[in-house]
């Protein structure tokens, strides 16, 4: 085997500097690492997407046209911007991860984006179906000091009877098509007339958290034009309990809301009963 001077010098340099070859496993591990980054990023992106879905389905954006004059401001306050950012960040990581794999560069960035968006959305929809979005949102709400949960933002939007938005829990359903609603935001009861209102397919029932679109009447009367469950995907027991516990807002007041729900309702009913009886006397 004849060698030029240059190749001899290379071989000598390798020997003199004891330059060693990287193991085959180093490359296998490196490639595997990028696949892992890709997989984890898709997983997190999917979780982010499940919360986006949850936020959209809970926010009733179709009602926003009735929110004049502040509908744009309200719309932005309810958009899950944090989760859009979260989703985009992990989408970036997943594209970077798969692009850095051994053959990842052969696919165009647009195709990689498409594959990753599709994977995250498909997996995110599954997570949402199993309640993953709601759970993650709640974890962030409870543990992340910088994050304000959707529920709190919803309450802020819906606690404005002067602008025709009211939310609370049904205390009583009366035969004259009026409801007795306790609005814990303002700590007062409202008589809600719903004769002409569009109401959800689901039957109204005592204890149900609702949001009401309408018009404020005299004193404590509210004329409803539309009634919807407060957070429709939380209408199971778990969701209601959660809704009620933090109904009035911030975490620092949580002790106040540790009160038993039934006890509170019973107390209010009996006080109402006493008030009515005193009227008859």
């Amino acid at each position, binding site marked *: *085997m004849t060698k*030029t001077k240059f190749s001899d010098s*290379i*071989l000598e340099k390798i020997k003199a500097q004891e330059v060693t*070859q990287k193991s085959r496993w*180093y490359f296998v591990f490196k490639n595997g690492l990028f696949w892992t980054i890709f997989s984890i990023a898709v997983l997190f992106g999917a979780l982010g997407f499940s919360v986006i879905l949850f936020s959209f389905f809970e926010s009733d954006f179709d009602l926003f046209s009735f929110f004049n004059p502040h509908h744009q401001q309200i719309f932005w306050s309810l958009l899950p911007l944090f989760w859009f950012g979260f989703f985009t960040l992990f989408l970036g990581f997943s594209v970077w991860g798969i692009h850095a794999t051994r053959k990842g560069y052969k696919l*165009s960035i647009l195709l990689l984006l498409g594959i990753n968006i599709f994977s995250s959305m498909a997996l995110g929809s599954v997570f949402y179906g199993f309640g993953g979005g709601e759970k993650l949102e709640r974890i962030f709400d409870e543990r992340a000091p910088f994050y304000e949960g959707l529920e709190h933002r919803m309450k802020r939007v819906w606690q404005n009877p002067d602008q025709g938005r009211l939310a609370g829990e049904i205390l009583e359903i009366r035969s004259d098509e009026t409801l007795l609603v306790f609005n814990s935001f303002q700590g007062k009861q409202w008589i809600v007339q719903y004769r002409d209102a569009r109401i959800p397919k689901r039957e109204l029932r005592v204890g149900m958290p609702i949001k009401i679109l309408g018009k404020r009447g005299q004193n404590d009367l509210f004329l409803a034009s539309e009634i919807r469950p407060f957070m429709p995907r939380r209408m199971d027991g778990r969701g209601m309990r959660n809704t009620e516990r933090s109904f009035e807002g911030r975490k620092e007041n949580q002790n106040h809301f540790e009160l038993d729900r039934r006890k509170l309702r019973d107390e209010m009913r009996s006080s109402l009963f006493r008030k009515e009886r005193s009227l008859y006397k």
Partner: protein
Amino acid sequence: MIFESLVVRQSSNSIHSLYTFEFELFSDSFPLMTQNPPLTDEQLVQKSIENMDFFGELVDRYEMKLKYYILRISSFSSHEADEILQEIFLKVWQNLQGYTGAVKFSSWIYRIAHNETISAYRKYTSRGGDKTVELNEEIFELAPSKINIPAEFNAKESAHMIQQVLQAMPEKYREVLIFQYFEDMSYEEISDVLKKPMGTVATLVNRAKKSFRETADRLSFQFSFHDEN
């Protein structure tokens, strides 16, 4: 003596059988003549992992190709190119087990060469280094079938002009033109070297040809590629 008899007998009609006879008879004296066909790059890589001497063969195969490539892409001096070339082969040696055969070995080694050269070139220019372009007509010769060059220019003048145009072009365009027209690479090979999708490479090549013509116009040279759209 043996060779003489072999050469003499080549003129006879029974050359094939004689060749076979002589090679079999004296194969010990001419070990390389029996290695037919020569080892492919991929086979040499496998053998180099086990025996370093085979790596020398790989170095021999790519030494000049890569040196020319370095000179074309960077306009480093010949001495500087040799230094970079050494670093390239050391890196190739270190990463040899990472070569899986998924791409051609030439693409793989050019990828390392490209990264090392660009990195060295950027380091040099970021330190304020100013490259004086050395004329090397040999490395910038293009086959007449690839480029329209006015007849009045001789090879040396043409090479000088091509070099000037390439140096004045954006790096991303210069590199794809060098790969396609000087290194004779296909889109797939360029894609493997630059780690870019083939569609992107095709787009880059088209834009690079346009950029080449515009740069040449700006420098008052009148030539373009034959296959330019």
